[in-house]
């Protein structure tokens, strides 16, 4: 009983290795039903092969009855079968033992021996209902039909095609159609945008640098980008900038970047000086709000908002910076108003971080600084 499967062992079948057939369910159900009948008759146990054979025989019996009764109905000019069709079919298929009155040809079918025997059987035998509840089978899958022309709102090409027919497939499925590459232009646009943003960055950095250069070539941690008066005022107040400790250490709890680099002096490249120039800007802002000196505040208030508005930390060199530019704008707007100390503190930390990040970005693209 090999089904062509290599894994069969001996004579026993391995239904698990076979793919389930459409008939298998019916066969399995008939096996169970036949087993129940045999149990009712008196059998205690079965061989599986014997049970399979009997189940197959029962199924074939059913099919034969169906065929015969259908042919009798068709003979009478009907499509649906009658009880008489069934009785005739039963007589035809025949109990292998025969039935009473088979030799008599009577007009009345209802009096046939077959029916009588069947009736007797029903009366005599006890009712053995089927064990398992069965779903209706075979289960029909819903087929997705191709939508018609009118469903697709398309006009069929040609008058000879009615609109209720399924629509024709799209031309790109069966022949090569030209494709216009949209991506190229997008890349170009992106590149242009990037270049524009880089130029903006460079411009702002350059402005900053120029102003810091105006402040004084001495540089130092405490120099601000304010005009000379206020810068000198600050310096006079704080003394030697190289010896004084950095403002952040005294005022702030957590310096976010290394002040020693800045105090050591502009011994590094242009980038380091740019880095340094950012810090005094931030400190100057802090000084503005921490000090309550009138004159200084006035000067600074005059100076700083003007300066602040010029500096736009909108670095859009890469997409990751885009999201951060909003924060910077917010910070810029906040700076112009007097705010409580705690909020300021957070802002200063953030500003420091932002400045650090921006400087890192600018250091990563040193060549762009020169392209101005």
């Amino acid at each position, binding site marked *: 009983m090999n089904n062509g499967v290599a894994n069969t062992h001996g004579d026993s079948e391995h239904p698990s290795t076979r793919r389930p057939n459409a008939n298998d369910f019916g066969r399995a159900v008939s096996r169970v039903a036949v087993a129940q009948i045999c149990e009712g008759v008196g059998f205690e146990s079965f061989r599986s092969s014997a049970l399979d054979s009997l189940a197959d025989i029962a199924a074939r019996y059913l099919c034969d009855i169906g065929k015969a009764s259908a042919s009798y109905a068709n003979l009478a000019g009907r499509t649906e079968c009658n009880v008489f069709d069934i009785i005739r079919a039963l007589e035809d298929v025949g109990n292998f033992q025969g039935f009473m009155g088979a030799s008599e040809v009577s007009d009345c079918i209802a*009096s046939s021996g077959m029916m009588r025997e069947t009736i007797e059987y029903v009366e005599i035998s006890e009712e053995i209902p089927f064990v398992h509840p069965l779903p209706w089978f075979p289960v029909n899958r819903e087929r997705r039909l191709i939508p018609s022309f009118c469903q697709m709102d398309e006009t069929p090409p040609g008058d000879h095609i009615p609109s209720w027919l399924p629509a024709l497939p799209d031309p790109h499925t069966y022949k090569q159609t030209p494709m216009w590459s949209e991506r190229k232009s997008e890349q170009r646009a992106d590149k242009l945008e990037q270049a524009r943003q880089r130029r903006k960055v460079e411009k702002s950095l350059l402005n900053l640098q120029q102003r810091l250069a105006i402040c004084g070539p001495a540089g130092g941690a405490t120099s601000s980008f304010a005009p000379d008066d206020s810068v000198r005022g600050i310096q006079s107040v704080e003394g030697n900038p190289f010896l004084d400790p950095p403002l952040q250490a005294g005022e702030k709890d957590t310096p976010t970047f290394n002040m020693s680099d800045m105090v050591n002096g502009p011994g590094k490249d242009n980038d380091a000086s740019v880095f340094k120039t950012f810090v005094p800007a931030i400190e100057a802002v802090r000084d503005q709000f921490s000090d309550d000196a009138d004159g200084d505040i006035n000067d600074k208030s005059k100076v700083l908002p003007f300066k602040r508005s010029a500096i736009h930390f909108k670095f859009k060199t890469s997409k990751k910076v885009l999201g951060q530019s909003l924060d910077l704008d917010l910070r810029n707007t906040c700076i112009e108003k007097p705010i409580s100390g705690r909020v300021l503190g957070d802002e200063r930390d953030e500003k420091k971080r932002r400045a650090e990040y921006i400087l890192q970005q600018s250091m990563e693209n040193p060549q762009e600084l020169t392209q101005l």
Partner: protein
Amino acid sequence: MNYQHPQPQPPQQSGEGKHDDDAAVTEFLASLLEYTPTIPDELVEHYLGKSGFQCPDVRLIRLVAVATQKFVAEVASDALQHCKARQASIVKDKGNKQQKVSALYCSLLTSII
């Protein structure tokens, strides 16, 4: 004239017989609704549908199911009789019907069909 006498009688009898038989059949069909055959209706409808039998009436489906059940039961009872006959002839310690069935089956099938 001799012929004429018995002639009217059979039709009357058969007419009455018809009515009786019809009544019996209709009663039977009605009783089928209560009786649940072992072979489930879904299975019967599946195989009948395969062979082109079309009928919306449940009673006819049950009739076919009962007929098939009767057929299987008869085959099984015959096999059992053969088995017991064999057991009676061959005395064994184990009263095992299982071993006998399959062997009986092939012989039974060849004798039946």
